[in-house]
């Protein structure tokens, strides 16, 4: 392994990793928020709105991220939407993630026994309070694992941002690979970085899961 190479490309790779993390975190948070809003709207609105939402979900979920990004970034200017690469990256990430997140939340809503919600209505809790206090904490049991899954998947999809010249990790790695004609070393580093993100996310997911299943574990004490 040629360490001299990393001396030369290290700073660029690090910067790339930073951009990757920025897009990933911003995209995940934005996607979760938007996805949650969609799931809520889907649950509490009229049929025509639902159809629209479902169409959005199917459309965005059903098409490859690369193509969405491509259309947004290279097609945008034709309709006057000129975005910088990082802007386009984050925006497309939020849009791309939202239908997946919204479906995960939808499954969560469906997992709470109706009786518990009825009980909440009977003591006069409002829909928002029911959501926050009864539904959300319990549905995390079901959805923490899929959420973790998808956030992990998003971390890897950041690689696609290189297509629109976002200077993220893969982009910088490819620069290094192309300029030096080395493949193994840079991609080893790349894998290691992604692996780090995955380990971090899984660990966080486990922490959350541990917390939200407390009341279940007590049952089998």
């Amino acid at each position: 392994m040629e360490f001299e190479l990393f001396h030369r490309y290290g700073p660029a790779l690090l910067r790339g990793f930073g951009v990757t993390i920025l897009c990933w975190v911003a995209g995940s948070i934005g996607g979760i928020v938007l996805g949650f809003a969609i799931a809520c709207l889907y649950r509490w609105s009229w049929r025509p709105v639902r159809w629209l939402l479902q169409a959005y979900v199917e459309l965005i979920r059903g098409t490859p991220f690369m193509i969405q990004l491509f259309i947004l970034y290279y097609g945008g200017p034709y309709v006057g939407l000129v975005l910088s690469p990082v802007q386009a990256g984050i925006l497309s990430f939020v849009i791309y993630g939202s239908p997946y997140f919204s479906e995960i939340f939808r499954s969560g809503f469906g997992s709470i026994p109706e009786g518990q919600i009825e009980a909440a209505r009977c003591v006069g809790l409002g829909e928002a309070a029911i959501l926050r206090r009864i539904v959300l904490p319990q549905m995390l049991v079901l959805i923490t694992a899929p959420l973790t899954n998808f956030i992990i998947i998003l971390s890897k999809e950041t690689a696609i941002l290189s297509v629109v010249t976002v200077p993220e990790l893969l982009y910088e790695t490819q620069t290094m690979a192309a300029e030096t004609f080395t493949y193994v070393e840079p991609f080893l580093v790349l894998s290691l970085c992604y692996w780090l993100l995955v380990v971090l996310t899984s660990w966080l997911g486990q922490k959350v899961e541990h917390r939200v299943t407390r009341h279940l574990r007590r049952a089998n004490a």
Partner: protein
Amino acid sequence: DQLADIKKAGKIVAATEMHFAPFDMLVDGKYEGICHDLFTEVAKELGVEVEFLDLPWSSVLPGLEAGKFDIVNAPVTITAERMQRYSFTLPIGNATVALAKKAGDESITKPEDIAGKIAGSQKGSAQLEQLKAFSATLPSPVDVREYVNIDEALADLAAGRINAVANSMPLMGYAAVERPEVFALVMPPFGDPKYFAWVARPGEESASLIAAINDAIVKMHEDGRLEAINTKWLGSPPELPTTMPDAK
């Protein structure tokens, strides 16, 4: 010995990314282009069948090293750095840099006009190096953008984010021929003359294969097949040396 193995099998397997028009491309699902035509002739000279593989560029060179196929028949620009890692054949195409601009852009009529403007090129390509070197000679430097694929650079040119794309002359010329309403070629080419060639695994194993292919190329030089094929795709033949050029 690789050549002996190929002869024994009666088949040579060549891989490329069919994504470098006019050298390698898929037209209506069929593999076509200069490299296709040339390599088919070369295989005839070797007296073996040829099988073409289409792989994304990122797995072409790893695949070569893993021995999944015999040779890369993509147009690879000859550079000194690459010569250390792979064995090159004789040049089969001209890789000197030229610019593509947006059709109808009157502000660029010669390469020097991109001073102070934005130009894109492909990451890690020899042409990118040439562009940067060229930029340094201009009164105001060029803002150089690097793309993973040349397609995306062209898409950005069409979208108006950049003013020009620098890549090898045949590729730029072909883009202009294909979509004259969007792209135009800026003549003349600039920078050092560069050449495309095919690559095989380095070392003794492939020496005889390379030699055999080189012989075939020289023969095609002589009997005019090389010129005919190039003319068919490019309109005019490039000037190609029949000995290995010096790579810097």
